[in-house]
């Protein structure tokens, strides 16, 4: 159901209108199942959600939501929806040690945090809970700010499965890239 939810969010929310690395499964599912699934959305979505790890209410505190505050520069399938979590990879995959980073504001304490988006690698695409947001994202030549790249380059296998969003530390300065 989260796929359908994603699609309708895509119509109304700016974030989900963006091109992504791998958003096709969510779009396809949405289109094919159509309106019949709409009434089920809140129930299904609630079942998908875990308790907020950061003590924030609503979508901004929900790691299965594209609006989760750590997701401001993510591009990929959310590992929370794939058997892992926002900070852990699903079974049988490996967390890539090299990553791209974003700087996201925590709505609870108002501070900016450096977020590391570690891809989980070694199995094929998860295909669930796609999220693509590009705050401060930069082209391929500025690679550590680029979320198009397959970041499984540092893992044993380069097949991409899903993406996590790890807090690195509080950012001392505001992110220059907008």
């Amino acid at each position, binding site marked *: 159901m989260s796929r359908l939810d994603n699609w309708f969010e895509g119509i109304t929310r700016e974030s989900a209108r963006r091109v992504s690395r791998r958003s096709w499964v969510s779009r396809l599912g949405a*289109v094919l199942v159509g309106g019949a699934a709409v009434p089920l959305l809140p129930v299904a979505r609630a079942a998908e959600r875990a308790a907020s790890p950061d003590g924030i209410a609503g979508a901004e505190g929900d790691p299965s939501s594209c609006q989760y505050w750590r997701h401001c520069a993510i591009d990929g399938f959310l590992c929370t929806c794939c058997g892992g979590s926002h900070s852990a990879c699903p079974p049988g995959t490996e967390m890539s040690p090299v990553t791209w980073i974003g700087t996201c504001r925590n709505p609870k304490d108002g501070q900016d945090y450096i977020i590391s988006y570690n891809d989980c690698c070694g199995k094929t695409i998860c295909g669930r809970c796609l999220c693509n947001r590009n705050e401060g994202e930069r082209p391929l030549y500025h690679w550590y700010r680029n979320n*198009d790249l397959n970041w499984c*380059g540092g893992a044993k296998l380069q097949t991409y499965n899903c993406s996590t969003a790890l807090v690195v530390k509080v950012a001392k300065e505001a992110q220059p890239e907008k």
Partner: protein
Amino acid sequence: MTSGVTAWRPTWLLALLVAFAPTAQAEVAPDDPGQVTSLPEAVGPHWVWVPDRALRRTALFDGAAGAMLGLIDSGMTITPKAPQWSKQRAEIYAVDTIYTRGHHGERKDYVFIYDARTLEVKGEVEIPPRAGDTGTGIALVDMLDGERFLVVLNQSPGSSVSVVDLAERKFIGEIQTAGCAGVYPAGPQRFGMLCGNGTAVLVMLTEQGELERITRSTPFFDVVADPVSEKGTRKGTSWLFSSFGGQLHEIDFSGAAPVPAAPWSLFSDKERANDWRVGGGQYLTYHRPSGRLYSIVHEGGPGSHKDPGTEVWVWDAGTREKIETFSMPNVLVPFIRPQMGIEAGGFVDWLLRALLPNLGVHSIVVTQDDQPLLFVRHADLGAVGVLDAVSGEHLRDLEEVGLSGVLLVVP
């Protein structure tokens, strides 16, 4: 009277028998098993490759006929890379990544060589297992002019470029290109790249395809304030790139070092004030014979550089004037039409177009003939719109092209 009727009846029956005799005899002849089609010798001016991330293959379509012509496979990357077509050798080259046990095992990267008529694999060249892989697939691989050398961007995430001699079918070497990305051909032995310090580099090869030297431009953009997108389009020995904010940069790679021209704005002050921006995936394309430049545009703020748009604007790159605004067709409808058994052009088709939101397009490409077509694609909707690139008229849709992807490649 009675005899007359009797005499007429045999004639009438005979006429009926004669009339229907050919039909009765024309049974469908048995087919010969094992037949396989092949592509025509000449590459059509309106053909387009449509790589697909979900189906892991790249299909070839004839945009004028609206027909699929065939496909080539791809392996375990996020997106298939752009196929390269040698007209001289009638070969197609596909850079691909495989694992020895399917989804796992040892990674191996190859340039697979296809016969351009039969689409059968007829050879391969193994290259370092570092070929870059991105969600868009843009500027990761290209064939240099003269069709001898193929260049492949490696990014793991350190950047280098593999060079392959296509005529000799051998890997030549790997050139270190730290801090730079994208490969932009500009001659038989040269290609450009964009770099994170706001410059471009020119990589020049010897006649044998080895590194001769790398030269660098002066800085011409600010990667923090207004970065130049790597989603460029070729104009002879130059490449055109737009910044996120719509500054159009032309980089000439024909000399000893890359020469960036002074940029010009795709948007007027008023348009910029109204937040018009370029954006999407492969959003910029240039028609070399006419000098027309096309870009997907949208209204958005910082961070919207991957947003699709429902309009394509057209500029005369010579006069730098905006000359056309094309409205993009709703490609959601041709995507779902075949799934629902809806006929194109019918009432339900019309109704869906009226009711369903137009999600816009992420990618465009214009053919290079004198009656050009503009192909348009949304990254997550498996249909390609076909427009007259001069008038902007929506001519037709290519249905069931796949499920997802950004690239559109004119061979």
